[in-house]
């Protein structure tokens, strides 16, 4: 299972460059998730690794092997497609065994492999059915099964769950998480869904506009986003962004804006004092706000609740703060009323500052 390395990967369609030099190192057996909004180049990157798209510049390494000029079949990969890409005229068993049959493996071996994989995915009763006779979730499993049968060193997933309904998606996500514990392979997974990225990944690679914005473990990216895009993309509900000015007050550095003044924790303050500018963007996750009626000056802010979205154990409040909107995640049992102005405490480690021009984290 060789580690995969992308080196200055560029993709151009005519004069338009859609990927601008992607560098990425993936460790052995790592589950890497490429995540980003549509058009960010994540699928193109995956398809270049698969060999389905030509590479305009750069190189893909699998271990010590440069593979950019190899056919897909020589790259030792298996792939699961968004629309499953099953062969409609073959039954489930034939679909799963197609590559093994092309390799002319012994029939007994093929049968055993198909049986084992079908058993693992709960497909045994459907081996004789054609894809058209299966539900979406079952087809999804067949697509996985076909990849598993191949025994390739690297698995590529191109938005494999996005054609399923929400409930099934959650279920399949859990099964995937379970599967990756038992299957020791390199996995590269493309999705636009940050929840899939957070729950499945060893390493998340956030992409935007043909660039890698940041890569790291889910916790790293969630706690220390490198820029405003990553901060806003990961986490649901998304991070709040407020315009603020840095002011010194009695030896402390405060982020002050319309309707709030928050004291920066020492580490952040130390970084912020070195800045040549005073105008910043303040980032606050909805989950880093807490309803504390007597939160002291500089550690909390007053928000006027205008909408409350009840989602079960949690409620999401949409509030007015000066002329901006702020979302807050609270426990549903917290007694609040619409139209009330409430005081919320901010966890000091939940404060993020961004350069308003470059959007880079401070």
């Amino acid at each position, binding site marked *: 299972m060789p580690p995969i390395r992308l080196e200055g990967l560029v993709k151009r369609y005519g004069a338009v460059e859609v990927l601008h030099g992607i560098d990425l190192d993936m460790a052995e057996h790592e589950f890497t998730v490429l995540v980003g909004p549509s058009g960010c180049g994540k699928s193109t990157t995956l398809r270049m690794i698969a060999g389905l798209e030509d590479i305009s510049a750069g190189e893909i390494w699998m271990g010590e092997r440069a593979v950019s000029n190899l056919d897909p079949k020589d790259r030792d990969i298996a792939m699961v*497609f968004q629309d499953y890409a*099953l062969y*409609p005229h073959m039954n489930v068993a034939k679909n799963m065994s197609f590559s093994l049959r*092309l390799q002319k493996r012994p029939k007994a071996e093929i049968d055993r492999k198909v049986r084992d994989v079908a058993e693992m995915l709960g497909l045994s009763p459907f081996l004789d059915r054609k894809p058209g006779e299966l539900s979406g979730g*079952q087809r999804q499993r067949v697509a996985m099964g076909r990849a598993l049968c*191949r025994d390739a060193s690297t698995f590529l997933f191109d938005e494999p769950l996005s054609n399923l309904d929400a409930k099934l998606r959650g279920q399949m996500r859990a099964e995937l998480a379970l599967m990756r514990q038992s299957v020791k392979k390199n996995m590269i997974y493309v999705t636009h869904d940050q929840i899939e990225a957070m729950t499945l990944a060893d390493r998340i690679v956030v992409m935007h506009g043909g660039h890698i914005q940041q890569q790291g473990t889910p916790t790293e990216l969630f706690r220390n986003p490198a820029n405003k895009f990553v901060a806003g993309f990961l986490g649901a509900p998304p991070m709040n962004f407020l315009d603020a000015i840095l002011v010194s007050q009695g030896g402390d550095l405060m982020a002050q804006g319309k309707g709030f003044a928050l004291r920066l924790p020492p580490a952040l303050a130390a970084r912020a004092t070195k800045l040549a500018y005073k105008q910043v963007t303040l980032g606050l996750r909805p989950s880093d706000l807490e309803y504390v009626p007597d939160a002291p000056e500089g550690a909390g802010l007053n928000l006027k609740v205008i909408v409350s979205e009840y989602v079960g154990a949690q409620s999401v409040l949409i509030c007015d703060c000066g002329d901006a909107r702020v979302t807050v995640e609270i426990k549903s049992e917290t007694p609040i009323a619409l139209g009330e102005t409430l005081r919320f405490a901010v966890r000091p480690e939940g404060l993020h500052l961004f350069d308003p021009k470059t959007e880079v984290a401070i």
Partner: protein
Amino acid sequence: MTRFSANRLTPYLFAAPAALVMLLALFYPIGYMIWGSFRAWDPSQSITETEFVGLANYARLLADPAFHESFWVTLVFAFSVVSVEMVLGVSLALLLDRKIRGMSLLRTLFILPMMIAPVVVGLVWRYMFHQSYGTINRMLEAVGLPKVDWLGQNPLLSVIIADVWQWTPFIFILSLAALQSLPRSALEAARIDGATTMQQIWHIKLPLMAPVLIVTLLLRLIDAFKVLEVILVLTGGGPGLQTEILALRIARTAREFRELGEAAAMSNMLLMLLMVLTLGMFAFTRWQEARARRLRFTKEEEG
């Protein structure tokens, strides 16, 4: 009339004019033909003056070696042209299903033969096949090969070549359309699964194109059984009876031999043969629709 029944009748009322035309232009002549096939009928007689002879016309045909010959020629012609056209048309489509510059121009050029009137095709090929100044023999001569007496010695082969030239494009455009509507991702999956170009064609493309190919094949076969103009112009059925396909023999029986009854009986036999093919095609499409319905149903059942 209640509102309910008026609503139910509306579609039939709309279809009525077309049905009337069909009745006059199709069923009347067919009925006339069937009735005529049971009578001894000279073109100088009106049909009421003719004598009823029962199945005598059919019996005579079945015993007539010239009819057998003609029937055989028709079968050989139809099946060979359709097989060759299928192989060529599908291969061309597989070759040209790609993005290269000037492809749309090439495709237009490829389907030109189909747009030319059959009589013109016949004339063009008669010239090309000509023993001494025909293009083909002059080309053979230029590369040092002996001349071939196309229409004299190889008449059936010659008409087959002309028909293949004219109708391969038909199969080509339908196959190309079928190819381009194949699911791209299934082909990509096959590439990743390790299928070579030939294996992709054999295991994925052809099976997925099969429904279109089968209908195309039956359409072409039905058409090939009725071919007339090109052969009439190229060989006139000769030499001897070597290219006298059924349509041509029917025309000759009616006009030269003045046996309208026998010609009608022959037409009926051809009609029945074509009916079998057409029913085969209907059965196939019905089977396909039923299958699609069943699939949709299972899908809805399981959500």
